[in-house]
């Protein structure tokens, strides 16, 4: 069988939405810079070798509309290189890598750049016009519920307490802070210089800053501090701003290439997406989605859960991640060892690619073979992808 290798991956630092370094940065502009850097990082790589660019994006409208994928490919690589956008909400970034892998393995493509880009600063969470179907609302109104409400439902059903959720959140911040301190993300992040133009005292002024590190981590987060935050989605609920993922801005992309092409160019593969699966669950319990997807991905790969050395489980909500660990029987020690979205942020469509890149570097450092990226997905889905890292 033809193989599809991940040759290299790069990501932006993950900015805090609306207040961080990318608050005024469009995701297409950001993605262009990441891809340019990514391509330049591979010796002898000609941008025109790229057959396609797949951009995951959870809100492909407004600033991210007008075929954001195509706009990114043309600007980053040249007008001859096509591109498109896909959307499976929080799975989009991983889905893009999966699709690239499948196209290459099937022999229908040679080289694809895949990943995701999202600005949560510039777009409202539900898009500019939230308009669910009347019929859907009549059939099952719980098919469209806010993510926070699903987290509360999951917490209740799997018996996750406020203390557990807050505790998990503190862990996330601590591990993330440690990872940053020890430079675990430094090589994968492309520092971005941002120029801002604004008016001060009736005059146009400019300022520059560099965004080179994830912004959401708070090393000093304590259980007591988190405990003081109010529940935001439910009267008497447990989900707070402190134990939820952060809204973020970011972009992350990888180069996926056929084994033939990699050999020809003399490139060493970094990883390989062995298997990937999605599954549906009750939309009200969206957060439990990974538990339905993981067994499918394992079975495709002919692997057992304990063959997996490291797991990136997207922390949409601490309570949701805990429910997945509990229900899925995961070893908490290998889950999110460098912290998760509660601390590092969750730029929706970018997340799957970003977690993959983090996973590759950590597995390489640990000398692991198999790793998994998994996430719950809005609308009651889960995704799980199993990587082999070389």
């Amino acid at each position, binding site marked *: 069988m033809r193989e599809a290798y991940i040759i290299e991956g790069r990501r932006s630092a993950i900015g805090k939405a609306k207040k961080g370094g990318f608050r005024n940065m469009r995701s297409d502009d950001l993605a262009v810079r990441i891809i340019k850097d990514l391509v330049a990082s591979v010796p002898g790589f000609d941008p025109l070798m790229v057959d396609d660019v797949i951009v995951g994006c959870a809100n492909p409208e*407004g600033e991210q509309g007008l075929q954001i994928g195509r706009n990114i490919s043309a600007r980053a690589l040249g007008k001859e290189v096509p591109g498109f956008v896909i959307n499976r909400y929080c799975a989009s970034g991983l889905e893009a890598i999966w699709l690239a892998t499948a196209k290459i393995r099937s022999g229908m493509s040679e080289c694809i750049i895949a990943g995701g880009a999202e600005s949560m600063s510039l777009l409202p969470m539900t898009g500019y016009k939230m308009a669910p179907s009347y019929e859907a609302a009549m059939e099952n109104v719980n098919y469209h519920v806010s993510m926070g409400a699903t987290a509360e439902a999951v917490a209740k059903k799997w018996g996750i307490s406020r203390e557990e959720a807050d505790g998990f959140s503190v862990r996330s911040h601590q591990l993330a802070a440690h990872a940053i301190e020890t430079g675990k993300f430094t090589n994968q992040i492309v520092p971005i210089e941002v120029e801002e*133009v604004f*008016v001060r005292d009736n005059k*146009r002024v400019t300022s520059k800053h560099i965004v080179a590190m994830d912004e959401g981590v708070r090393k000093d987060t304590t259980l007591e501090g988190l405990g003081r935050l109010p529940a935001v989605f439910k009267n008497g609920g447990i989900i707070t701003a402190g134990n939820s993922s952060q809204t973020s801005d970011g972009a992350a992309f990888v180069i996926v290439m056929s084994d033939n092409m990699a050999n020809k160019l003399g490139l060493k593969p970094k990883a390989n997406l062995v298997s990937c699966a999605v599954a549906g669950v009750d939309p009200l319990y969206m957060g439990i989605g990974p538990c339905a997807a993981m067994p499918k991905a394992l079975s495709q790969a002919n692997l057992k859960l304990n063959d997996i050395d490291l797991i990136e489980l997207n922390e949409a909500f601490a309570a949701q991640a805990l429910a997945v660990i509990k229900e899925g029987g995961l070893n908490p020690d290998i889950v999110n060892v460098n912290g998760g979205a509660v601390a590092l942020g969750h730029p929706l469509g970018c997340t799957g690619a970003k977690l993959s890149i983090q996973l590759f570097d950590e597995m390489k450092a640990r000398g692991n073979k198999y790793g998994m990226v998994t996430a719950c997905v809005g609308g009651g889905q889960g995704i799980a992808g199993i990587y082999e890292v070389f």
Partner: protein
Amino acid sequence: MSYRIKKVAVLGSGVMGSGIACHLANVGLEVLMLDMPTDGKDRNVIAQTALTTAIKSKPAPLYKKEFASRISVGNFDDDLSKLADQDWIIEVVVERLDIKKSLFERVEQYRKSGSLITSNTSGIPINLLAEGRSEDFRQHFCGTHFFNPARYMALLEVIPYAGVKQDVVDFFMHYGDVILGKKTVLCKDTPAFIANRIGFFSGNKINELTDILKLKISDVDKLTADPIGWPSTGSYRLLDLVGLDTSVKVTQGVIASCPDDEYVQHLKNVPTPKHTQFLLDNKWLGNKSGQGYYKKSDEKDENGRSIILQLNLETLEYEKSEKRMLDALGIAKKVEIMSKRMNDMIDASDESGQFIKEYFSGLLSYAGNRVPEISDTIYGIDDAMKAGYAWGYGPFEYWDLIGFEKGVEIIEACNNKLPNWVESMQKSGASTFYQYADGEKQYYDVVANQYKTIPVAPTVFHLDTVRSKVPVFKNSECIIHDMGDQVMCVEFVSKANAIGDGIGMGVLEALDKAENGDWRGIVIGNNAKNFSVGANLMAVGMLAMTGDFKSLETMVDGFQQINMKMRYANVPVVTATQGYVFGGGCEMLMHTDAAICSAESYIGLVEVGVGLIPGGGGTKEFALRASKSFFDGDTQIPTMINKLKAIATASVATSGHEAYDLGYLEHTRDRVVPGTHHVLGLAKNKVIELSQAYVAPVAQQATVMGRNALGTLYTAVNEFFLGRYMSEYDVEIAKKVAYVLCGGDLTSQQQVSEQYLLDIEREAFLQLLGNQKTQERIQYMLANNKPLRN
């Protein structure tokens, strides 16, 4: 009793019927328009087609296309029962007594008692139409005669007859004036009523003089236009427009029904001119038959326009017109003051002088002798001619211009009949037909032999009534009047009311006086045809061409600051507009507290046409208005595109109502009213109303979108370019508009001050002025009075 009108039926959907239906819809009525039924499934084809055609016609009969939804159609067979809940039924069917009478007979079976019913007949006696009808019908029946096109022609003749109740007549006199926005003139049930009766004389007299003096029709058309304050159309071109058959019909109608009329008696002895007969025989009736007194030739002139040929009245062949400098035309060019011009033209010794003298001699005599036959008052006749024929002056106003004695002299010199009452007037020592006293306009009342006040609605205000008072301030461009009730009015008096330093100084003076003195506030308005054509382009162009950018910067900054001072003044400032409200005029309007606009206000920021952007705060104002319209969850982009489009394509609203859609007017503060003659009075009332508890606005911040919208706007501009709707230079200008609207290339949405926006607006304005292409546009506009697309 007072009548309330909500629903109105128009019977007949011809050009007049559908035009009237549209105008009634314009003022907000629910209109039912009926015509003859057609065979087949859809029986309303005639009325429906007429409505569709009317809506598409130019000039637009509706203030706004959407108002068409206020009109429904039907037919005389199936829908007469709907007349039962109509408050007013107006008949506009073919001009035949038998047809009208039989329709009224059918209408009577359905109409509710007490409902108003009128006929738009232009010639059939009202009393004949009322014959055979019930008492209730007869009491509520009269003539209401609109002129074509109903929206634009300002005259409404109200024609009572013996059977109508006085309150019905009073109602229509008021309703037509205040609600329909018309100059309502009280007529008598006499042939052709007022305007067409005088028009009958005027047209035939001109025709006669043309033949006698052997004038070319193009010469006559030049004489009977701007030189005497008439529309530029000219008599024969108007005849082609109206249709020769129509005008002959009116003439014959008057001849048949007015045996005692001295001009009718005279005409009986004048054979039909051979050219009239020639055209009638050939059915060359004017525009509708492709040719008449004029004919388009296949030849083109140097500008590529078809050469228009005129009929030689002697040879009856079409020929090219030659330029001839007649004395009267030369005088008209030189002499601005109308009374002197009229006298000089009358005294001119060539055939043009002869023409003017003979014509006005006849007109003054004929009109004079029609009082009290067709109108008890002289102003009724003057108003009818001004509003119905768009004359600059009515017969008696011309007489005042010429001078009382001189008028008498030319009447006698040309062997016309001096009206008896003029002789008594002469004896009484009165020497003018009108005078101003105590802030009111008075007319010489023929019956009472004394001056009386012309009654006007309380909202009508004309600045002529205060001209005798010493103005509060005056310079070459404006006059500040005391309107009474502690309200002042800044009247523009510059050429075309263009805004220059003088007006700027005047406004500052008014603000200073009002803020520091015993004034309630300020009206900015005038009674001219156009509120203002905008900034004085000549002054701006001269400075740009001499490269004096320092003076330009001072000038633009000055105008911006004047507008800002108006906005933040401690007294209310209200604009009153009609006609053109262009560029700087529109910018002033937007900076006042409120505007009262005639529906016939054509408002627009048109600076792009001369290679500029609105630089007196207009672009800033659009940015501010966009900002004020943003709401939580708003995508904002459509608003920004609309604002850009309005300015970048120099959009001019074709009515006050359209100006709301283009963003020049705001529903929350500005009001559009049908009657131009009411705007000053209403503006004065608005000042009084606002002054009751006036708090000056505090400085505002605008949320500007920066790059969040600028990318979209630049992309939109490119679309205009690709579609060839914009030249390369248009693109450059449009991008400057976009830049200012977005507050510049800011990386995020931000709140900025008005002054910041004014600064970048002024900078863009000055940059454009330094561009050769803008200077070419300005020169071209000054020379040709139309924009250059370079």
